[in-house]
């Protein structure tokens, strides 16, 4: 496929066609995580989320392309080639749920599953002009989700609208006895139906999120979104998030640390790719992993190994974990005063292909709006809120308090029903 959306296509006749990101295990259907090391892996089990969705009448129409193991912000680290942006094929679709976002944008499915560790649902949704939702941590089972960073990963829906996302979430959320990090959902987790009522909702816009580096057209579109909420009856005001600037650093320390451990199991012993040209056990390990993993994955493994290593653990991993808790508390305090926070999803529109990977440090900094949400385990959605002068989509991000997923979806629905840009 020229636009490289599906890694594996599954012929289906169903009316509720679901595209599933290729790091979510589907029994009997190849699941690669976008990597050579799992290129031929066929799992003998399905993720709980998939089981529940199939039982609710969804049918699998394909496994979508993604950045390798979820590590990337453009789709370009996929072993199977990058997914291009459906609006402008010279640009990236975003990452890591690139194929899922593009598939929804092109109508190749009725909804898609993505995963979000540092923004991997919300960001490609913003770049592709669709709606992407990351549930509260623990609301959707991680059983069968190929782990990138265990304390940050969540499966979530991508659809044309918040309503589509709501339908998918309803069918898959809920505690799973196979995942001890999954939670019992509070009674008010999701309403029976969305009513779009936003009157009286207190919406905060953190001023630290509207600083330098933010593209002016993106800023304008997001502020317009805020104005729209005001028109619809919400109380929109300024607020502050002092630790906001440290979130990217904390995220990459923690995510890479957990990833370096989660990816150690890919050693060529029990499943997946086994390297060539080895003469002993150690060479088998090294050849397997050097030949099987792309360079972004290798970079993050090295970084993660470093921040956990003896002599550096306290200064990096332990400190980042403490900063994470500071950020979580800051959010909690904000949510005593506000029902929602509104900010951009990304600082720019989709970059051009080939521009990002050569400068990873800069690429990482572009995650600044999405990663704080994962650190705190909060629900967040990206909704299309306009396009720039070249017609490239812009996304606005709404964040809610822990387990307030219903409130976030309802507000997004209200915005979209009230004439907010689709």
């Amino acid at each position, binding site marked *: 496929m020229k636009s490289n959306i599906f890694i594996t296509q599954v012929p289906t006749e169903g009316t509720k066609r679901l595209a599933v990101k290729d790091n979510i295990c589907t029994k009997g259907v190849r699941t690669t995580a976008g990597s050579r090391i799992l290129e031929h892996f066929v799992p003998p089990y399905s993720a709980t989320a998939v089981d529940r969705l199939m039982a609710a009448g969804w049918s699998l129409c394909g496994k979508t392309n993604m950045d390798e193991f979820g590590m990337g912000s453009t789709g370009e680290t996929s072993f199977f080639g990058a997914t291009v942006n459906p609006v402008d094929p010279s640009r990236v679709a975003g990452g890591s749920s690139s194929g899922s976002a593009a598939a929804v944008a092109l109508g190749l499915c009725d909804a898609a599953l993505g995963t979000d560790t540092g923004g991997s649902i919300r960001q490609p949704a913003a770049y592709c002009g669709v709606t992407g939702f990351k549930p509260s941590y623990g609301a959707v089972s991680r059983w069968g989700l190929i782990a990138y960073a265990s304390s940050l990963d969540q499966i979530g829906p991508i659809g044309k609208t918040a309503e589509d996302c709501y339908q998918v979430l309803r069918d898959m959320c809920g505690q799973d006895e196979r995942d001890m990090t999954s939670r019992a959902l509070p009674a008010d987790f999701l309403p029976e139906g969305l009513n779009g009522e936003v009157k009286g909702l207190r919406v905060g816009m953190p001023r630290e999120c509207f600083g330098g580096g933010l593209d002016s057209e993106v800023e304008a579109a997001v502020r317009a979104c805020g104005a729209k909420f005001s028109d619809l009856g919400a109380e929109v005001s300024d607020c502050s998030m002092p630790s906001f*600037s440290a979130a990217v650093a904390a995220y990459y320390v923690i995510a890479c640390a957990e990833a370096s451990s989660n990816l150690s199991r890919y050693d060529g012993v029990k*499943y997946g790719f086994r390297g060539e040209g080895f003469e002993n056990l150690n060479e088998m390990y090294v050849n397997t992993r050097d030949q099987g993993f792309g360079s972004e994955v290798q970079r993050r493994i090295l970084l993660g190994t470093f921040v956990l290593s003896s002599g550096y653990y306290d200064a990096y991993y332990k400190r980042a974990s403490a900063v994470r808790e500071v950020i979580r508390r800051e959010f909690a305090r904000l949510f005593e005063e506000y029902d929602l926070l509104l900010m951009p999803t990304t600082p720019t529109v989709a970059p051009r292909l080939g521009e990002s990977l050569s400068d990873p440090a800069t690429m990482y900094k572009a995650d600044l709006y999405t990663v704080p949400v994962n650190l705190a385990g909060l629900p967040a959605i990206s909704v299309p809120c306009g396009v720039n002068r070249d017609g490239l989509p812009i996304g606005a991000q709404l964040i809610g308090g822990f387990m307030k997923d219903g409130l976030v979806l309802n507000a997004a629905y209200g915005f979209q029903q009230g004439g907010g840009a689709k």
Partner: protein
Amino acid sequence: MELTKEMLRHLAKLSRLDEGAAMGMENDLNRILEDMKILESIDISGVDLLTVKEAVSLRPDMVKPSFDRELLLSCAPETDGEGYFVPKAVE
């Protein structure tokens, strides 16, 4: 914190990656680490990480049928139908 080539070689050994490839990432990784200095500027006093975690729920001690061996081994790179083969593991 400066990562040297020697440290990278050690990190590659620990994570079973290619040492040459690792040493080639010296510049990128050091730039990334530079951006992490901001963590030192956040006040973390009063954070007790042990109490932050939720409590685990426990599984009852019951045996459920294991997976079919054939099914498990169908994923194996090298097998005789009974076990997984690897190059000789030296004690």
